[in-house]
């Protein structure tokens, strides 16, 4: 089955309908609205041009996401060449921030509280505002690795290869990202709701 991509054609409209999803996906990974917009635009264009290759075996969203993923990785490769991920001051200050979460004996200083039944937050639109703000607060390098793992669903080996970092380095950054996001969510949401 091929797609009818004539202007106003049924599938052209369907492809366009996935734009909001693709944009959110790209923004989470790229953290730059203009870059995200470009990646999505390129994706939609490639999709319309290559519509004949859409087999209909996967969902339209899965197919489009696959194209977008390639566009994003291309971008990350270019950005990585210009701005390598390893060895800078950010790294040291982040390491210090994580160290500060633990006492010298390795115990939590501000220990993780009970979040009650956090799933109820998922139904609250104000939670998502806080959530988005917390993801945006992650330092750039850490966020890049974390989103590759959690949003793009890439295994760590693949992330290491793409970014030319070691597995240990990758795990350290993922750990930092999770600690930082956790801290922010507790401060901005779960600590406040009194649960």
């Amino acid at each position, binding site marked *: 089955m091929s797609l009818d991509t004539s202007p106003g054609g049924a599938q052209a409209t369907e492809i366009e309908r996935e734009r909001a999803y693709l944009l959110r996906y790209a923004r989470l990974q790229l953290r730059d609205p203009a870059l995200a917009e470009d990646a999505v635009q390129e994706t939609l264009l490639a999709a319309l041009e290559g519509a004949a290759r859409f087999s209909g075996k996967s969902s339209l969203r899965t197919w489009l996401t696959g194209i977008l993923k390639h566009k994003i990785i291309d971008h990350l490769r270019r950005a990585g060449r210009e701005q390598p991920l390893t060895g800078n001051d950010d790294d040291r200050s982040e390491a210090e921030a994580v160290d500060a979460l633990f006492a010298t004996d390795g115990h939590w200083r501000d220990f993780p509280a009970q979040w009650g039944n956090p799933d109820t937050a998922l139904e609250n639109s104000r939670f998502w505002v806080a959530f988005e703000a917390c*993801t945006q607060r992650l330092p750039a390098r850490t966020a890049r690795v974390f989103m590759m793992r*959690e949003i793009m669903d890439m295994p760590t080996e693949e992330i290491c290869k793409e970014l030319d970092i070691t597995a240990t380095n990758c795990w350290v950054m993922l750990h930092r990202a999770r600690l930082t*996001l956790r801290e922010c969510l507790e401060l901005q949401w779960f600590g406040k709701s009194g649960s």
Partner: protein
Amino acid sequence: MIPNCKHTSELLSQAQDRSLSLPEKIRLELHLLICNRCRNFNRQLEFMRKALRRYRDRD
């Protein structure tokens, strides 16, 4: 040896990205048995992964 909270939090995070070895799993379980803070952290890790997926996929 039972790991401390910092090391446990590292192992819990890595458990989301790779399969832990049997000795690692045992040490982790021993720590979780006696530490509700790290048990909280573990539940929070699961929640954060779920929330990120939901955030990405919601319409």
